[in-house]
């Protein structure tokens, strides 16, 4: 009898469905708010307006277009209502909020849409503007960072925003620092120090075969070529021929120097394969055709690469040889990073690789072959960061469950799998926003976090400013199991934070990991309850998977944790914060204010 009953229950849940899928991924519980729709909260004036696009006060620049235009009644709302979203031209109210008997009321003229994201992408921000806060957060996201977009931004401001937005590490575009430059180097050093103070780790991110703009300018003879014979300057990347022996030597030296010059926590070797997403169908974008690379392809495939492009049988051999070459290059450069790590053992390694399991055309288009590379990444102890290709960016968040399902059997270290979400303007015809924002972003992050132990965002600059305020809640994997009186039971498979004012005891013991507003949760199930004790020193923030923390005496804490990179503990005493770097691994460390 299970099937029919569950079917009936699913049907009953339909009416609240759109609101639930719109708000829950941002960490909200529907019980926190009263939701009204149409006539339930407004008076119909009898006028109608055809809604094609809307403006939301949380970001008036954001272009929000409905895929399906809709005729909507024009409503008059209660006097106390604050309108947050209007029809673009007429100004007719579409989303508003107010308080009734102390409880927030969220009103919309129509439903948010079946998937919760079709009409009002910034709906969760309306709740935030009404003073409602999600109760659980996580701070284990990664984000890519390119300083050329933040040339004059204040590092302190950025680091605080990142951490509050749930970021554990930023991956800094290394090609901007490939060549030493005193002024820029100072800026990066300051950024790294500031990030560490805010418990944010910093990784160097390289995008071979792009090395740097200057490298491209200075070595025209080592430039990669497309099949139509042009220098391979494709989109923003200026590709170099890494099969050229002199080029390879120069890049090796440059990589070692880059890692040595800064206090990195890890290195990310990203997207080392060939171009382009149009594959062999577009020779003007098809690489590698620089002389050395072409010779390498000829040796491996036994066919002439130029002639092979037009002969289907030869093309197969050529594409296989190209995938071989890409795999060899990836192994070579990961090996190089392992060698560098001998001198700097705390470095964590990451290999960013496009997905070719969900979108299996990637092997032929780019030469990417994840299954071949995963075992090598495992042996090198590197995290394997899967990037979902542009061809599927328009698909819904459900794809992450499917990607996880396809990769888990390929590795013995599923804990080192990670997923990269590209938050960018998509080339597909997508709605309501061209780039993932608000509800859609939170749905993506939530689903990804539920399916992968690590979620990375490309990139920190593309995330809308207002979305930062709910990102940490969207990433939360912890769940409240029960609330009885003042006792809250939480299940946190990867740790996390819970909104909790004042002293908290966990499983009967005064818990020192709190900043007064948020309590850091240990891995597993915990029972929280209020307490009276005031500790002189606490753990205000921690970057790593927190397993336990004990206050040994007034000025010392014993922390049990695991972390692939150096962990960062932020201690707080008398309102003053101090960050302490701790060794990577599965460890128990004692830290004191004076250490």
């Amino acid at each position, binding site marked *: *009898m299970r*099937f*029919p*009953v569950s*079917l*009936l229950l699913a*049907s*009953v849940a*339909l*009416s609240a469905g759109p609101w639930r899928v719109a708000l829950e991924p941002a960490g909200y519980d529907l019980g926190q708010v009263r939701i009204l729709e149409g006539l339930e909260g407004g008076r119909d004036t009898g006028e109608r307006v055809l809604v*094609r*696009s809307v403006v939301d006060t949380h970001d008036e*620049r954001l*272009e929000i*277009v*409905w*895929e*399906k*235009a809709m005729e909507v009644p024009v409503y008059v709302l209660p006097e106390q209502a604050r309108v947050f979203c209007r029809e673009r031209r007429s100004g007719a109210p579409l989303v508003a909020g107010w308080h009734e008997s102390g409880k927030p009321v969220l009103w919309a003229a129509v439903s948010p849409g079946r998937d919760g994201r079709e009409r009002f992408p910034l709906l969760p921000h309306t709740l935030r503007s009404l003073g409602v806060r999600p109760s659980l957060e996580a701070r284990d996201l990664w984000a890519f960072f390119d300083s*050329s*977009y*933040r*040339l*004059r*931004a*204040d590092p*302190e*401001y*950025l680091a605080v925003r990142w951490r509050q937005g749930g970021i554990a590490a930023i991956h800094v575009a290394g090609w901007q620092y490939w060549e030493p430059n005193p002024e820029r180097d100072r800026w990066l050093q300051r950024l790294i120090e500031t990030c560490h103070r805010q418990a944010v780790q910093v990784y160097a991110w390289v995008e071979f075969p792009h090395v740097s703009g200057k490298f491209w300018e200075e070595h025209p003879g080592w430039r990669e070529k*497309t099949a*139509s*014979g*042009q*220098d391979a*300057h494709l989109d923003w990347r200026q590709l170099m021929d890494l099969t050229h022996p002199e080029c390879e030597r120069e890049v090796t030296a440059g990589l070692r120097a880059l890692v040595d010059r800064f206090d990195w926590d890890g290195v990310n070797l990203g997207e080392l394969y060939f171009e382009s997403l*149009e594959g062999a169908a*577009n*020779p*003007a*974008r098809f690489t590698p055709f620089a002389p050395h690379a072409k010779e390498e392809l000829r040796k491996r495939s036994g066919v002439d690469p130029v002639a092979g492009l037009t002969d289907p049988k030869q093309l197969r051999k050529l594409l296989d040889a190209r995938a071989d070459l890409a795999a060899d290059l990836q192994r070579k450069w990961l090996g190089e990073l392992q060698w560098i790590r001998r001198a700097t053992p705390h470095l964590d390694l990451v290999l960013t690789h496009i997905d070719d399991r969900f979108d299996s055309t990637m092997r032929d288009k780019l030469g990417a072959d994840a299954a071949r590379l995963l075992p090598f990444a495992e042996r090198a102890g590197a995290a394997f960061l899967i990037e979902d290709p542009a061809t599927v960016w328009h698909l819904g968040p459900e794809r992450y469950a499917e990607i996880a399902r396809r990769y888990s059997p390929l590795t013995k270290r599923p804990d080192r799998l990670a997923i990269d979400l590209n938050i960018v303007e998509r080339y597909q*015809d997508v*709605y309501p926003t*061209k780039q993932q924002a608000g509800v859609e972003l939170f749905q993506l992050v939530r689903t990804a976090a539920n399916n992968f132990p690590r979620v990375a965002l490309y990139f920190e*600059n593309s995330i809308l*400013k207002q979305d930062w305020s709910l990102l940490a809640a969207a990433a939360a994997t912890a769940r409240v199991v029960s609330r009885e009186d003042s006792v809250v039971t939480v299940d946190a498979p990867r740790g996390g934070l819970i909104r909790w004012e004042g002293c908290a005891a966990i499983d009967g013991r005064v818990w020192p990991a709190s900043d007064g507003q948020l309590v850091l949760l240990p891995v597993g199930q915990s029972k929280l309850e209020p307490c009276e004790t005031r500790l002189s020193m606490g753990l205000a923030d921690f970057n790593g998977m927190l397993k336990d923390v004990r206050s040994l005496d007034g000025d010392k804490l014993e922390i049990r944790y695991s972390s692939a990179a150096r962990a960062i503990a932020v201690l707080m005493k008398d309102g003053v914060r101090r960050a302490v770097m701790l060794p990577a691994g599965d460890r128990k460390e004692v830290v004191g204010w004076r250490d």
Partner: protein
Amino acid sequence: MGTWLLPVSLLWLPLCPQSPAGSAYDALRAGRLDEANSLFRQSLSSGAGTVGLRKDFAYTLLKTGDREEAMEQFEAVMRLDPSDERAALEYAFLCFELKRERDARRTFDRLRQSRNAEVAATASTAFENIDGPLREGIARWKSAIESAPGQWSAHQELAGLAARRDELALAEAHYREALRLKPGKSDLLYELALVLRTAGKEREAIACLLALSRGREPRTAERARALMPERYPYVYEFEDAIRVDPSNEELARELDELLFAMDKKAPPRASAKQMGLRSLEKSYLNDALRYLRIAQEENPDDAEVATKLGLTYNLMRRDDQALVWLDRGRRLGDPEAERAYRNLKASRRRFHLTGWALPVYSSRWSDLFLYGQVKGEWKLWRVRPYLSVRINGDVRGSMPGAFGPLYLSENSVITAAGVGMPRKHGLYFWVEAGQSFSREGSRPDFRGGAALFHRWRLGARSFVESATDGVYLSRYQNDFLVYAQNRAGWRPIGVESGALLEVHLNANLTADTRGDAWANFTEFGPGVKMRWRGLPAGMSLRVDFVRGVYTRNEGNPQRPNFWEFRSGIWYALSR
């Protein structure tokens, strides 16, 4: 930046210590950057701002990474004080960072002529940093096109670079070529419109934008609409746009409408009736109404026009008028109007009486069954209270079972009062309490459940439908039964003709919580449903031949598999 930021701040503060601007500087000094920005914004929106204040705001925005807004502030400063070359430089650099290379290049180009040597040198270097790669890119893509012609994306790349370098003729030529190779690609047409507008070819730009604004991609249409004049387009603009996109039906329709509205004597490309029917089909209800009213004036005895007018009003939720026109349609002899009129009339009554009867013969049980119900229902705001009389019976009565006689039906009359919820998304809930009367005497009867129905149309004549009922019955020892009845069918003769022929495949599942054999089986097989003209309205005949499998066989007196032939008459009345 810091060298001039401080003096401006010091000048401002003593003047207005309590003003938002003063508080903005306080917040800025304390490192509360978001708060500072908010106060600057507030101050400038009240119109109190000076150029200096605006610049300080712009620099604070840069600290928080809000480059787009900072760029707008520097642009505003340039307008307020054209001699401020430093603001112009900032603006140009930000344009470059934000991928507005053309604006950046133009501004740097102007600043190259500055009398201030420092500004001129900076602008010259920046200009070359933009212009050089654009030049090289253009040369590279020209060469790529020569060596591999026919690649629309190569033409798009080249056109984009040329547009950024203000080589408008080159950009236009290659966007047009890209469009020729990839017709219907709306982003190319949009880019072309921008280039044409920059080149001063306003009429051609409007033609592209108008075509896009009536195109299939809502986002591009919306962007195009934002760039068009506020006024409604002229006839010649529609004609230009149709030349740009001859396949755009919406343009043609709107032009017809415009011509017709301008001069009724000028014949539209289609008759008012055709336009009305087409508009209704595409759900342009206001247009449908306008055209159908004209068509009705032209030919008051056209039954189809009257019916469609009624249906249009019904879709617009103006049911009083819908009834008037449907009534007219049925009086003119349109059966569709007759049906729609009856349905609409019935749906508007507060009290609704329905009855149905289903005599059905089953070869599996070798028995003739009769099911029926008469129900009087009141339509209240959110609930539907009702009174009901059901009859369940069969001719044979019982058959031997493993644990005594097995009764084939309830053989009873059940009177009850109940309440249901209005059907929503195909889902209906109901609950009732009553008394059952049979030869064995009377006893209380409680039942309730949910029904979910959905039909999917697959083209004009095919369909798939699914009806799932979950029913709680007190009289079967508090059993809960679920019936899922699914049909995929094809109707060579549709019901709109008054007759019906339907061929279908059944896939049914029945299950219960008690696990009784008779209530746990699946069946699959073909069937036919039919009616012919002359049968009373609401009556149809149905024959099914199915292969079934019992899913619970404990105490089952039957074989685990069965064939069943069923034939029945369905008759329903509604008043």
